[in-house]
C-alpha cells in the first residue's frame, strides 16, 4: 500500500511542490591546477524544463548551452593561479541553480620554475632500489660544476603518464592483450593524484583517451579494437612528450612496442630535440620474443644504417630522460614490467637545483648525479637545454 502511495506521489504533477534545480560540476577536478584548454562538464537535474545553462570562469561568461550535454572547453591560460568555475542553470518561471568550484594553484614546491631543474633519480645496489638515502648522500654536477640541492623529496610525487601501446599488426592477439593488461595494471595501481592517458598507435593513432584516473575510462572503449597497420614510434613519442608539456609535476612516457619505427614523419633526431627539452621520463618496454630482430632492415623511407641510427637515438632519448629500456622476451613479462615501472617511480628521489651558469643560449648542460656510497648505481636525466 505504501509503495502504491509513493508511486502515485511520483506520478503527480509537481506544481504544488517547490521548484528545484540541482547543478553539479563533474570536471575539472578541485584537486588539480588548471592550465591551457580545460574541459568543463556539468550535470543538471530539475523538475522543470531547463532553458539555458551558462558557464562562468573567474566571473566571466564563457559559454551558454540550451540543452545537454553541458560540456565546454575553455582556455584558462598558462598562469599558475586559482580559477573559479561557476555553472548557472536557468529554468522556467525564473528558477535557477548554481554550482561553483575552485581549482588550486600549484604549490611552490611542485612548480617547475624555468630555472629550477628537477631530477627524478633512481638509485640501485645489486639491482635492488636503495630507499634510505638523504639529501646529503647526493652530489649534483652541472657541466662539471657542483650545484647545491635546494629541494629534496623521497617517495611518492604525483605523476602524469602517457602509456603508448603499439597496436600494429604484429601485436595481434596475446601481445596486444598483454599490453593492455599491463596498462590496466599500471592505472589501477595509481594514486589519487596520478593521471594517465592511453594511446594506442600503429602508423597512426588508433585510439587515445584523455588524461584520467579511471581504469574504466581508459579501457572500456577498446572492445573490438583490432591491431592493424605498421609502426611509427617517433611520431607518437613526440606527441606524448608534447601532450605532457601542458601537465605539471612528474611526467612519464611508457612506450610498449615489439618493433622499430618504419615510417614516422618525424625523425628520431627531432624527437631527441624534444626529449631534451622535456622533463619527462621515458620508459621503453621492448618486446623481443625471438631474439633481436631490430639490427638490420630497410624501408622505402630509410636504409638499414639509417634505421639502425634511429634505434640508437631512441635508446639515447630514453637514457637521457632518466628512464630505462626493459627488453621483454615473453608476453608473460609484459604486465609485471608495467607494474615495475610504477613501483620504480614511487621509489625515486626528487632533487632540485638552480643552475649557477645559465646563459639561455640553447646549449646542452650535462648533469651528473652521484651518490657518495659504494656500489650504488644512479640513474637520472642526463642534462637539460639552457633556454
Amino acid at each position: 500500500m505504501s509503495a502504491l502511495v509513493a508511486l502515485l506521489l511520483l506520478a503527480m504533477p509537481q506544481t504544488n511542490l517547490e521548484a528545484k534545480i540541482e547543478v553539479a560540476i563533474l570536471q575539472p577536478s578541485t584537486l588539480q591546477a588548471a592550465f591551457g584548454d580545460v574541459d568543463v562538464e556539468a550535470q543538471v537535474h530539475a523538475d522543470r524544463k531547463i532553458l539555458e545553462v551558462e558557464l562562468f570562469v573567474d566571473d566571466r561568461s564563457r559559454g551558454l548551452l540550451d540543452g545537454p550535454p553541458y560540456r565546454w572547453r575553455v582556455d584558462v591560460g598558462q598562469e599558475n593561479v586559482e580559477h573559479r568555475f561557476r555553472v548557472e542553470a536557468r529554468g522556467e518561471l525564473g528558477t535557477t541553480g548554481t554550482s561553483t568550484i575552485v581549482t588550486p594553484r600549484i604549490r611552490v614546491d611542485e612548480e617547475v620554475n624555468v630555472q629550477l631543474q628537477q631530477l627524478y633519480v633512481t638509485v640501485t645496489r645489486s639491482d635492488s632500489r636503495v630507499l634510505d638515502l638523504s639529501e646529503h648522500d647526493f652530489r649534483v654536477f652541472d657541466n662539471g660544476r657542483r650545484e647545491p640541492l635546494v629541494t629534496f623529496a623521497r617517495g611518492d610525487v604525483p605523476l602524469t603518464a602517457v602509456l603508448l601501446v603499439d597496436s600494429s599488426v604484429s601485436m595481434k592477439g596475446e601481445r596486444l592483450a598483454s599490453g593492455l593488461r599491463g596498462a590496466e595494471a599500471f592505472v589501477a595501481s595509481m594514486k589519487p593524484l596520478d593521471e594517465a592517458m592511453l594511446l594506442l598507435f600503429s602508423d597512426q593513432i588508433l585510439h587515445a583517451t584523455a588524461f584520467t584516473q579511471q581504469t574504466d575510462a581508459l579501457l572500456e572503449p577498446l572492445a573490438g579494437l583490432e591491431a592493424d597497420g605498421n609502426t611509427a614510434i617517433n611520431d607518437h613519442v613526440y606527441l606524448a612528450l608534447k601532450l605532457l608539456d601542458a601537465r605539471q609535476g612528474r611526467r612519464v612516457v611508457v612506450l610498449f612496442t615489439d618493433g622499430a619505427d618504419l615510417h614516422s614523419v618525424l625523425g628520431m633526431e627531432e624527437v631527441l630535440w624534444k626529449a631534451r627539452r622535456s622533463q619527462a621520463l621515458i620508459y621503453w618496454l621492448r618486446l623481443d620474443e625471438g631474439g633481436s630482430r631490430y639490427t638490420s632492415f630497410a624501408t622505402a623511407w630509410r636504409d638499414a644504417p639509417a634505421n639502425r641510427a634511429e634505434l640508437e637515438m631512441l635508446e639515447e632519448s630514453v637514457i637521457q630522460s632518466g628512464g630505462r629500456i626493459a627488453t621483454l622476451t615473453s608476453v608473460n613479462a609484459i604486465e609485471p614490467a608495467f607494474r615495475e615501472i610504477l613501483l620504480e617511480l614511487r621509489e625515486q628521489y626528487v632533487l632540485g637545483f638552480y643552475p649557477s651558469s645559465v646563459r639561455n643560449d640553447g646549449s646542452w648542460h650535462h648533469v651528473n648525479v652521484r651518490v657518495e656510497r659504494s656500489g650504488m648505481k644512479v640513474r637520472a636525466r642526463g642534462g637539460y637545454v639552457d633556454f
Partner: protein
Amino acid sequence: MRRTWARPLLVSLLPALAALPLAAQESRTSSDPWAILDGTYRPPPEAPPPPWVRTQELIEASGEWKALGETYRQSLERLGKDDRGALLKVVADLEVVAIADQPERRMPRLAELQLDVARELARHDPEILVPVFQLHHDLYLQHRSSRQWYLLLHSVSMVRELAALYVKEAAGTGAKMNAARILASLAGHLQAGQQPASVKLFEEVLALDPSNESAYLGIAAHYEKRGGPAEQVVAWLKRLLQVYPEHREGRLRLAVNKLRLGKADEAAALFAALLEEPGSDWVYRLAAQEAARLHARRGRIEKAIALLEKALERAGGDQKLCIQLAFLYDRNRQSFDAHRLAELARGGEPAAEAPRGRYNGWPHEALDHDREELRRLAESRVQLLARVLGRAAGPEVNP
C-alpha cells in the same frame, strides 16, 4: 612448346627454398593427401572431395599419369560450376599427390601433363587459356597458404608457361596485355617473399606490355624498399612517366628519390606541382609532408608551417599533418599552437590507410585493377572452356 624460360627462374629459387621444410614433413594428418602414399588417406570431413575425384584409385592404378591428366581435365570442366575454393583444393590435392615425395623429379612431369591438356584445348580456342592460367594463379595462393613450397614454384612456372602459350596462340596486343596482367598479378604476390623473382617477372610483363603500370611501380617500389639505389628507382619511374606523364604516385616517388639524390630543387618543383592539383588523397598529404620537411631542412620554418596549415585545411584533421605541424610550432616556440595541434592529432580519426604506410607498402591500386580485369575476362571465357571440354572430352568420369 618447350619450357625454355620458366626453368631458370625455378632453378634460381630452389636454393632459397632448400632450407624450408616440405609440407609433408610438417603435417601428416588423416586428411593430408600425402597420406595416400601409406594408404591412410581420409578425405577432410569439412570439405570432402567430389565423387569424380579418384586420387586414391589413381595413385594405385597403373597408368597413373594418364589418370591424373584426366582428373585435371575434369577439374577444368568444373570451372565456373563448382565452388571455387573447393575446386582449388581439389586441384591442389591432385598436385600434391602427383609430385608425391619426389617433387624435383615429378614436377616437370606434372607440368608437361597439365600443359598437354592446355595445348590441346588451345587448339580449339586460345581464349580458353585465360580461366586456366587464372586457376593456376589462384593455386599459387593456395599452395602458399598451405606452405607447399615446391608446388608454389610449380604454380609460378605454370602461369608463365600458360601465359606464353596464350600469347603464341592468340596473338595480338590484347592477348599480350592479358598475359602481362596475369604475370604482373603473380609478381605482386611474389613481392612479399621473393622480391628478386618478382622483379624478373615484372620485367617480363613489360616485355609483353610496355604500358603496364603495375610493373613500373612494382620494380621502383622494390628498389626503394631495399634502400636503393635511388638512381635505379628514378630510372624506372621516368619510364613510367614517359607512358603516363601525369601519374601522381609516380611523380611523388620521383620527387622523393630526387631528394635522395640531392636534387632538392627538382624535388621541390615536383612537390609543388602535386600540391597545386585538386583533392586531398594520400599523394597530396604525403607531398605536403615531404615539401614541409624540405623547407624545414633548409631552415624555412615559417614556409613549412604555412604549407602545413594550408594542407590541414584541405585534408581535415589528418593526424600526421597535425603532428608535423605541432612539432614545427614547438620548434618555433609557438607552444600554445603546438599543444592545440597535438590535441587535434590525439582526437583525429585514423585514416583507412596511412599515407606513409601506403608509400612504404607495395603499390596495390594498379594491381587490383589488373586483377579485376582478369577476373572478369576469365569469367567470360569459362563457358567457352566448358563447351570445348564437352566436345573434346570423353564421357564424364563419375563413379
